């Protein structure tokens, strides 16, 4: 065979190999795709399966355990069936997982909760397509007093310092929502403060930098002076720390255009720490140590003072607990 013939043969061979490879691979690829579709369809829990696992979770979580799904996107199915008794808003909008002693995880397809990675699995069982785990927190940091829960009269007040103002508690304030990119919903029960409605103070839920829910106190700083949230008769005997978080709806702070917001925590009038929220920080933790306490004074006053140099769209939302 001369050179021309060899080259012609080589040219034809490459194409034939390509075509044959495609012909051999095609049925296999098709079979894999069809099998994949079948697998997805077969592994999807139906309504009965969700109801069955919900019943199991209800009994496992009787002690107030945190209930999560893995993957997270499946959570609405469980919320639909379990409701607020087993999955209360305080759990859904949790500031952290340290505060819980126990958790129940409902898992699909081998998924595991990263959030509960430090927890110990003490029981695991299969319920239909689910794996249900009971987990214990090896180092729980339980909450002695939740300032979010305590934000109401007679023990809580809100006011401003410049000028000195007082915000009045309302149980029938008009509910206001900011829409996409706007402020969170201001609830019916809240402190009515001077100025636009977003100056009011109340408990709401924001979406953090991962768009996860965070239950917190909406406390947009005033244009001047401090906005001061004050709780009286807070049980402090034996307490060691104030632990909290601050953040904003991520859509507001992600452009990193807003002014810093200072958050100062005072106990009985004495500052125990100041933290600063910078745009882009996301849901940020803080921990301030409590000074030693006289046994004769088991309760005290906690104040949170919020201030900023420029109050333009400062959607601060914070939560704090005594631990």
């Amino acid at each position, binding site marked *: 065979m001369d050179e*021309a013939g060899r*080259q012609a043969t080589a*040219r*034809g061979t*490459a*194409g*034939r190999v*390509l*075509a*044959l490879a*495609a*012909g051999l691979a*095609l*049925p296999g*690829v*098709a*079979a*894999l*795709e*069809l*099998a*994949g*579709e079948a697998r*997805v*369809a077969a*592994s*999807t*829990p139906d309504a009965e399966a969700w109801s069955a696992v919900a019943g199991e979770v209800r009994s496992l979580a009787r002690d107030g355990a945190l209930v999560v799904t893995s*993957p997270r*996107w499946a959570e*609405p*199915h469980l*919320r*639909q069936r*379990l409701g*607020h008794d087993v999955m209360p*808003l305080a759990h*859904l*909008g949790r500031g952290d997982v340290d505060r819980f002693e126990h958790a129940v995880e409902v898992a*699909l*397809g081998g998924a595991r909760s990263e959030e509960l990675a430090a927890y110990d699995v003490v029981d695991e069982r299969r319920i239909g397509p689910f794996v249900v785990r009971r987990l214990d927190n090896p180092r729980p940091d339980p909450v002695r007093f939740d300032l979010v829960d305590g934000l109401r009269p007679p023990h809580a007040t809100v006011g401003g310092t410049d000028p000195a103002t007082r915000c009045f508690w309302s149980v029938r304030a008009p*509910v*206001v*929502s900011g*829409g*996409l990119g706007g402020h*969170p*919903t201001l*609830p*019916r029960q809240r402190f009515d403060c001077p100025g636009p409605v977003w100056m009011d103070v109340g408990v*709401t*839920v*924001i*979406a953090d930098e991962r*768009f*996860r*829910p965070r239950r917190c106190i909406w406390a947009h700083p005033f244009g001047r002076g401090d906005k001061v949230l004050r709780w009286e008769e807070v049980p402090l005997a034996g307490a060691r720390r104030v632990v909290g978080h601050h953040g904003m*709806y*991520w859509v507001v702070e*992600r452009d990193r255009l807003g002014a810093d917001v200072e958050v100062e925590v005072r106990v009985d009038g004495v500052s125990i720490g100041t933290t600063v929220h910078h745009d882009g920080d996301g849901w940020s933790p803080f921990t301030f140590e409590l000074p030693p306490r006289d046994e004769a004074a088991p309760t005290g006053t906690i104040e949170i003072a919020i201030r900023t140099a420029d109050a333009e769209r400062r959607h601060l939302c914070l939560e704090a607990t005594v631990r």
Partner: protein
Amino acid sequence: MSPHGISGRSLDRIDAAIAGGGFVVTLAVLVRTAPAIGYARDEGFYFLAAEAYGRWLRALWADPAHAVRADVVDAHWVVNHEHPPLVKALFALSHELLGGLVAGGTAFRLPAMVLVAALVALLYLWGTRVAGRVAGVVAAASLLAMPRVFFHAHLACFDAPVTALFTATTFAWWRALETRGWRWPLACALLFGATLAAKHNAWFLPFLFAAHGAVVAAAAWAGREAPWPAVRRALAVLGLSLVVGPLVLWASWPWIWRDTAARVGEYVAFHLHHEFYNMELFGETYWRPPFPRTYAPVMTLATVPATTLLLAATGGAASLLAVARAVRARVAPLPGASPEARAWIRVSTSWIGGVLVSYGPWVRDSTPIFGGTKHWMTAMPFLALLAGVGCAMAVRAARRAAGAGGAGGGWRTAALGAALAACAIAPGVVTTARAHPWGLTAYTPLVGGAPGSATLGLNRTFWGYTTASAGPWLAEHAPADAAVYVHDTLGASWDQMQRDGVVPGHLRRVGSVAEADVALQHHEMHMQGQEYQAWIALGTTRPALVLGPDGVPVLLVYTRAARPR
């Protein structure tokens, strides 16, 4: 033309019948499946525009002199003037003619569905002409079996129509270079104009034609022929298109009849400086540049059936092999590339060029990604054509290996061809059928379908069209005078759904979740804040309804815990 021995064929009446049948079946399927897909956000804008243009068209019919006055033109064509007119005008005509016979929304949508059905027929004819009926059938079916294409094919939007027109223009370009005379060049120019008048993707066609014209000239050189006739022909067709195309755009767009330069500049500026919207990829929401360059390839792998991609890669590789062989043959002291090989190179490189020019903008990390896969949908027909050829090659190779002969009759030959064609198409058909009507949540088994994609953090939906899926539940459970927060569904889209009976007509649409008795929530990562707003406003975190494919929540419905006192 002969990609590795595959022979094309002259089209005959049987092919015309098959193409016609493909058109009819495609249209019937789209019309039949359309009502389950609610009206997308952008459709609402185009309904309003079509209604305005329809009023103008009626005025034009009744009193042309009055209708073409500047104030009259502006009053009607100002609506949605940031987008060109052709497709909206077709929506208007269809709605005028058929609005009383079918649901209003379907009447608006029909032109898009007709164009897609015509595209399916064109793919059959083009694929068959190049590489036989297996190629034609697989090309046509593969397009429709792409779940995202199937979804967009239903909508009164621009993406499916511009995909059809983009392909038709490329087909006309190819015919113009393969033939003599003026008919195909004129057709190419007119179709280019129509594509310009459909959507701005059309502006990439001249780049495709310029590059392809160079390839055609090079193919002539590879065949030891003078390239200049090919160059002159390409330049002539391109030049004619660049003159006629904009004229067609101008003639079809009353808004730019006057103040042309300023208004065209405004149109260009709108698209060059388009606002960025949000899009999720692997759990991150991107809202401004830099956008991940991996977005286009990842989403293609995740949404186009693997069999189609495998076969398209085969067809594309066959093209590149032919190009390499032709160049080597020309350079070496060998006879040049054969006429059949050159013909294959000419057509296949137009397809590859169509793919590359459609994806090209996403090489830059400043190109928006918020539209998802529809951004590069104009590539899909060319991928389907390459897949058709890839399948034809695979069938031939399999027949030879099985001893059934490279061509010819016999039931074994036919069965082998049918089996491989079925392998090519079946996975896409199954994925598409299972995903319907959640088209934008359709992901292939490669990423674990909808559940796998949700776990990976891929976008689940946008445009608020899934409201239609809650229609039956709303009809049964929503109180008679309920105020409904429709979230991402555009008001005009919701209103059309009410007119068409997709959602109950007695419900009141409200603009804030705080005013609502019922709140819809269309899942998008960056919109999660609005779900939490609903929790507080309605006093519940317990959804009354959770809907989505394969258990993945896409649409949630919340109802107020108790009416406020």
